[in-house]
């Protein structure tokens, strides 16, 4: 029931906000998000961390049984943690908007809560159509938030965002329906319980999709990646992201970076990897290559940015590249690292957007040419800025490091070079992939430190019209020169989590591993070359190996 409440409570409060006068909006939004967070804490407590791979807190109702639709929820540890991230960012987004949003507050807060409900729904759903419904429904609130509350070019950004993601996910839907059709009509005698009738249950379709021939899986991989790659965003289809980020209001950017991008990687984790193991094994090098191009290209673009927000936006392209690289390494350490990276990126990049938003509220500029040496004027802000930049760069001891390292290690171990050495898992990536991607870490350090060096340290530069001595400045409105308590209160939980996850990532990794192991087993069974002769092939049969070998040979001929 918790999961359903987590979706319904924000929706109910969204309606309440829309119906009540605007003065009460903030209050109801705070209550709504905090209540959802409270339910979330309760759900975390009820979740059995002893068996994190099983689907817990499940509940299901018939929706439209004539076409096999159910409203079905359930979470494993991966979903649970991403839901926790969503619920944490909920109140933060509300608190950070108190002074930034001065008009149409009802619209703003109610759509923000709808957005939260939709994102929770994505992570909680166990039915493909429900997943898709929530996945698509995140677009409407985000579209409204960007096009009503964004900066100058907001209309174009919002439209581009909506159309880009909508187009991709329609193709994804076609792929998912194809699997449902395959399950309903083609699978009667394989012994899968749900075969032969229309269902959109994720667990059932997972088995059905795995039974598909490798070439069909390849096409489905293409179809699914159409939607997920755009959402992530993967290198050639990332162009909507910087625009959307720069134009979005602060809370919009936080949600976008913190959770919305994770819908794509979560989709890859939940659908692409376990559904299409044979195709994933075949195409992992391609996906990894694209992600590495994203890492390097995103990083290099960051280097030449003068707009701070755009810089952080492009850094998301680079960071999410690591995430995909970890997924594409197809071994436990890489995938676990990738999931951990989703959470860490949400915390640190979300915080960076908050910090940039706070400066923007004071000086109405994001240009590095007009900002400099802010440490002199805003020491508290500068402290947080440096802290979260370090977390984002991957300083050991903070959260970014461990997950980035795990992704790289995963890629490194997924290759022949490691061979039968301990930890080697076999696969088609390897040393060079890890090395080139590793360059991305250096580039990340360069652009982020360069940005910090200019904006935080250096000679004090303020945009024209602002008093250099920090007093009697009217354009700040109600805000003090440095951060107020509310802003510190917003940043503090993120900072604490960054530190805790950096120092003690063990329990989280331990909780994430069992579901990841299940997927890795599936992939190994689907025919990845084993690391050592006679490696575990839990589900493999000789037929399957023959089929996959045929497919590999066919792929090799191309």
């Amino acid at each position, binding site marked *: 029931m918790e999961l359903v409440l987590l979706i319904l409570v924000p929706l109910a409060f969204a309606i309440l906000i829309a119906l009540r006068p605007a003065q009460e909006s903030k209050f109801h939004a705070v209550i709504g998000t905090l209540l959802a967070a409270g339910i979330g804490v309760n759900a975390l407590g009820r979740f059995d961390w002893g068996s994190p791979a099983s689907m817990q807190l499940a509940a299901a109702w018939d929706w439209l049984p004539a076409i096999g639709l159910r409203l079905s929820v359930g979470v494993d540890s991966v979903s649970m943690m991403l839901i926790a991230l969503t619920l944490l960012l909920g109140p933060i987004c509300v608190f950070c908007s108190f002074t930034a949003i001065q008009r149409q507050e009802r619209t703003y807060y109610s759509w923000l809560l709808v957005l939260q409900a939709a994102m929770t729904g994505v992570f909680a759903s166990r039915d493909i159509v429900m997943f898709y419904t929530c996945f698509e429904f995140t677009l409407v609130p985000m579209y409204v938030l960007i096009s009503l509350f964004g900066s100058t070019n907001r209309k174009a950004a919002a439209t581009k965002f909506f159309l880009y993601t909508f187009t991709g996910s329609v193709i994804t839907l076609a792929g998912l329906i194809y699997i449902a059709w395959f399950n309903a009509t083609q699978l009667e005698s394989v012994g899968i319980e749900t075969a032969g*009738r229309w269902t959109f249950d994720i667990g059932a379709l997972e088995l059905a999709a795995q039974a598909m021939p490798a070439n069909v899986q390849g096409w489905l991989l293409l179809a699914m990646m159409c939607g997920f790659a755009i959402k992530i965003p993967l290198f050639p289809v990332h162009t909507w992201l910087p625009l959307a980020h720069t134009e979005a209001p602060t809370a919009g950017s936080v949600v976008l970076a913190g959770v919305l991008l994770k819908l794509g990687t979560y989709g890859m984790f939940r659908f692409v990897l376990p559904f299409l193991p044979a195709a994933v094994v075949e195409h992992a090098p391609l996906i990894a290559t694209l992600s590495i191009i994203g890492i390097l290209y995103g990083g290099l673009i960051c280097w030449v940015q003068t707009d701070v927000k755009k810089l952080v936006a492009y850094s998301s392209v680079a960071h999410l590249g690591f995430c995909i690289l970890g997924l594409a390494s197809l071994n436990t350490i890489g995938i676990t690292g990738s999931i951990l990276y989703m959470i860490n990126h949400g915390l640190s990049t979300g915080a960076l957007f908050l910090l940039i938003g706070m400066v923007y509220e004071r000086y109405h500029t994001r240009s590095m040419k007009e900002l400099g040496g802010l440490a002199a004027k805003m020491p508290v802000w500068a402290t947080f800025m440096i802290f979260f930049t370090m977390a984002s760069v991957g300083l050991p001891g903070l959260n970014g490091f461990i997950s980035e390292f795990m992704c790289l290690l995963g890629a490194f171990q997924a290759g022949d070079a490691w061979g039968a050495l301990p930890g080697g898992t076999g696969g088609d990536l390897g040393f060079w992939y890890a090395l080139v991607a590793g360059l991305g870490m250096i580039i990340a350090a360069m652009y982020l430190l360069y940005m910090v060096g200019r904006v935080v340290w250096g000679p004090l530069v303020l945009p024209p019209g602002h008093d250099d001595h920090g007093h009697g400045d009217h354009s700040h409105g109600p805000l003090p020169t440095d951060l107020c308590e509310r802003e510190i209160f917003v940043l503090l939980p993120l900072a604490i989590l960054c530190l805790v996850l950096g120092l003690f990532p063990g329990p989280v990794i331990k909780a994430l591993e069992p579901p990841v192991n299940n997927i890795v087993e599936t992939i190994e069974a689907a025919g990845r070359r084993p690391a050592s002769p006679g490696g575990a092939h839990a589900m493999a049969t000789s037929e399957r190996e023959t089929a996959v070998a045929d497919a590999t040979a066919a792929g090799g001929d191309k």
Partner: protein
Amino acid sequence: MSEKLPLLIPEIIVFLTTCIVMVVGLSPNLAVRRSCGLLSAIGLVFAAIFAVNGPAGDGLLPAMTPYAKALIALVGVLLVLLVAGTVDREEDARVARGGVFDALRTNRAEFYSFILFSLTGAMLCASATDLIWLFLALELTSLPTYVLVTMSTRGTRSQEAGVKYFFLGALGAAVFLYGFALIYGGTGSTKFVDISAAIADHGMNPITLAGMILAIIGVSFKIAAVPMHFYTADVYQGAAAPVTAFLAFVPKTAGFLSLILLLAIVGWDHGSVIAAGHALPSELRLLLWVVAALTMTVGNVLALLQSSPKRMLAYSSIAHSGYMLVGLIAGPGAYGASISHNGIAAVLFYLAAYGLMNVGAFAALAGLERRGRDGRPVEIDSFDDLRGLCATHPMLGWTLVVCSLSLLGLPPLLGFFSKLTLFTSGIAAGEIVLVIVLGINSAVAAFYYLRLAGVAMLEDATDGPQPGLAPFPARAISGLIALVLVVSLSFFGNGLLNASRNAAVVEGSGVRAPGHTPQQPGQHADEHKDASDPAKDASTSVAQRVGA
């Protein structure tokens, strides 16, 4: 003939209502005259009740008849509410100012009776068992609409639209009548059952095929499919918004019902590599494939370019016809009963969903008006007039937003599920490429529907005189009912899905296929697993091999 009468009770009820309305509309008493709309609505509700409880038809799709009649009658109720106040406004005002009532100058009686005639025609299409019947029913649907368009506003644009509509409609009728004649020439009968048997026994001869192609192209006029779509934008724009809503639903529904019946004559059981022999003859499939792909693409691309919401909705209605053609190509499927496999059921469901969303979207346009230069009320016809609608007129605004998002196919709204069933049936029939075209087109459609929703929801109202509410609450009520139905069917639409599944059972063609038994309404797909199906066996063995 008398055995047909119970089948025609709904049409007879509507016809009797027409007769009453024709007299009542001429009453010198304004209140009595105004009751025309209400009387028509009551008549249609009764027709729907009798249709649902009445006997199944006796044609190739017996269960489709009651479903289609009830659908037409119920959406007809909303349309009748929507057209309130379209005619006679100035006449009523003149009489109210103390003028003498002149029965010759009032149009209300004709207007409502033409609407009811057209609805009767569409209902008759559903029960057609004969080519001549079908032709007459289609013409009964269309002829009143030519007049409706012309008399809907007092402007010259309506007259131009009416003339255009009439001439092109006559062209369309000539084409499909020629097609019907050739089908008769090729098979020796005008009865569907006999034609079907003749095709089954002797195959499609070239004359029958040519007749079928001409018939399909001719009927394409009614559904506004490429290449017979050219009239759409001008006619839809020229007519008053409520009449446009009528045009977008009633002739389209009649056209799709006719196409379903025509294709059911041929059957979807022709040997072909696609979908294991469950397909149309390859020539017809190719024709419909091209028409479907072109229709949705042309409709969507042209809708993108429009600056008038009515023209935009006109082109988008072309696109929706294209989507529905996918269901026709897919056919009732190998398993007969499950809606996920049944393209015909998907089309019937889509028609219901489209009818509701369409009424909702047009109700927002029809519910507003602004003062023209001469002080007369004129319709709104630009996106600027819709700006900030959610703030100024929340109910109309949200009706427009929800209905356009639903037309866009955004889950979890009704429009998404109607597209979903088209997707599943298309994939089940092996039309993967067409389904991808459909998907991409849905994304293109997102652009302009989003613009429509965004203008109403997000923009601030323009300075200067705002459009006001049209003084006809029935229009807003009709939109509100449509809104409530769209939202509630999104979550509780299972009954409608089941009804459309049961309605789309093809009798004739299933009998002839070896190893097939005619499917009874209500039977579930699972019960027919053992139907012989070579491709299924083949792919099952693949699945067995891979997944064992």
